[in-house]
């Protein structure tokens, strides 16, 4: 597990020239190469490309033409599940509206993203996403993109099994700001993250790789066991 983030980052960088070529075929939407820079804001939670897996957010391979909230192995918010049930399919138009203002599109979404007001940047991002959807056979081999700010952690820290009951007590402190129902009205959603992502994020704050002063302070005094307990609780929290 050690160094996984670094490996991914290297593969991601190796991918950029290939994306430049692909951009030519996507000019009618936007510039996919520029979109790969916008993607940096998404890649903390979403993976894309061969081998991509669901993480804090669902994997985004083949998202075009997919019904909302339809990956069988991802735990979606009630809002997106309802949208999918109501027939929302991800198209250029629906994705554009969702990315422009996620909470207007689906008020209870757990996607902690304030929205992207710049239509050109959205078009670039959609062009980038589309490269992983339209003709997958034409897409060069690529690894999932890097998670940002991934700390170096000893395997035994990642292997710690947290006590969810302890986590529930500790979580009360988080829930002064982060909502238990997973909605985001200005403070990011932290429910249903894979435990490993949660642990990595908290250690990233502890090591001050992530910049937020409140979170650096809160994480800074949590023990490894407490972080594992919180991760275990929030991964399985009831909606």
């Amino acid at each position, binding site marked *: 597990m050690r160094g996984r983030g670094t490996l991914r980052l290297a593969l991601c960088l190796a991918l950029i020239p290939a994306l430049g070529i692909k951009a030519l075929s996507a000019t009618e939407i936007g510039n996919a190469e520029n979109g790969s820079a916008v993607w940096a804001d998404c890649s903390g939670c979403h993976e894309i490309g061969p081998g991509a897996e669901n993480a804090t957010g669902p994997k985004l391979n083949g998202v075009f033409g997919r019904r909302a909230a339809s990956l069988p192995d991802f735990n979606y918010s009630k809002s997106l599940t309802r949208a999918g049930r109501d027939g929302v399919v991800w198209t250029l138009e629906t994705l554009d509206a969702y990315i422009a203002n996620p909470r207007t599109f689906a008020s209870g979404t757990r996607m902690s993203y*304030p929205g992207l007001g710049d239509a050109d940047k959205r078009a670039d991002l959609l062009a980038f996403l589309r490269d992983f959807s339209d003709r997958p056979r034409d897409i060069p081999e690529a690894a999932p993109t890097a998670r940002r700010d991934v700390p170096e952690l000893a395997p035994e820290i990642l292997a710690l099994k947290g006590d969810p*009951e*302890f986590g*529930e*007590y*500790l979580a*009360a*402190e988080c*829930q*002064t*700001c*982060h*909502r*238990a*129902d997973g909605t*985001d*009205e*200005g*403070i990011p959603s932290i429910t249903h993250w894979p435990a490993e992502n949660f642990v990595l994020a908290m250690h990233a704050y502890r090591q001050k790789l992530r910049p937020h*002063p*409140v979170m*650096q*302070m*809160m994480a*800074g*005094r949590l023990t490894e066991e407490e972080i594992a307990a919180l991760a275990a609780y929030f991964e399985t929290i009831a909606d």
Partner: protein
Amino acid sequence: MNIDRRRFLGTIAATGAVLAAPAAIGQTRPRVVVIGGGTGGATCARYLAKDSDGALDVTLVEPAEVYYTCFFSNLYIGGFREFESLAHRYDKLTGDYGITHARFMATGVDRAAGTVTLAGGEVLAYDRLVIAPGIDFVDGSVPGWDLAQAEVMPHAYKAGPQTQLLKRQVEAMREGGTFCMVAPPNPYRCPPGPYERVSMVAHVLKAKNPTAKILIVDPKEKYSKQGLFEEGWEKHYPGMITRIGPDFGAANVEVRPDAMEVVIDGEVEKVDVCNVIPAQKAGTISATAGVTDDGGWAPVNPHSMASRADPRVFVLGDASAQGDMPKSGFSANSQAKVAAMTIRAELTGSKAFPAKYSNTCWSLIDTDDGVKVGASYVATDEKIASVDSFISQTGEDADLRKATYEESLGWYAGITADIFG
């Protein structure tokens, strides 16, 4: 840490066994009475009911049907929030969590008998009592002012009609008039609150009445986030705000509501609006219950928020004397969770964990110019002690200040959901 924790858990287990016994013999659910439906009381009631899955009988004693949060009420004065956005009701606490809402003032506490008397005459028996009444004002702390004068010189330090009155007065002030704030001495509710209020009043005056002046009469040498406020006032409201500190006699202040005068160390100032925030003490029921000290606050055990005077009584939030935490909604919410966890462990035998506390206070200086200060705390035998802290820096860029403000909106949504369900 381990020794502390073991000793703490051991104490809980022992007292729990002794004190829970009567409730078990009576074959009724253990009863917890919570006095005060503000941040501390409502949070504690909700966590008690939620986490005990109905094993506890929780009654919230609160005369009001609607609670208006004091936090963010300055933003209403500044025109950034609607008044109704501060309003919260108890219907989820009663409907979703099975909490009984007794809509009366608590008028008496008999700790020997374990009962609370309500203004309606009803007597409630308790196995544990939580007192979270917020603040009351110290009589005579600002000579010339008492509660009867609050219609002329509002305190607006308990949110509601007082806040609306102050906003109306600011908006109706004559052109070029003077808004005066008599700031409180330490300790008081919401340390940055008076200075955020000055910022919000200045924001209104800058648009509607730009030649108006603001005068702060402050008995304190220094105050919370001082450097950030002073920098912001210079940037957004140059020349509008003057603060007189104790070195110029501000500790010797008297008001004359009939004449709209403020007398500072013998000098008479004519003012147009006067916001008097008097010295404060624990809400009156704390003294009635006999859990306050000579300073007017209620000392508590830092490990549990239990009163130093009575382990069956817990005091939360502004009313408590606990150590380093500021009197804030965030603090009250944090303390309420420790008390709820402790009470549940004592009455139902659930697991007890070491206390953890934290606080963050956001303030708005002008549109999209938000700042924050915060700290985390541990319980020592002596007090709740600060272990780490942070504060916004002067000279931060506009994007960061805007993000800080937007974060505060998210916090408001989060904490009110955490308090009221």
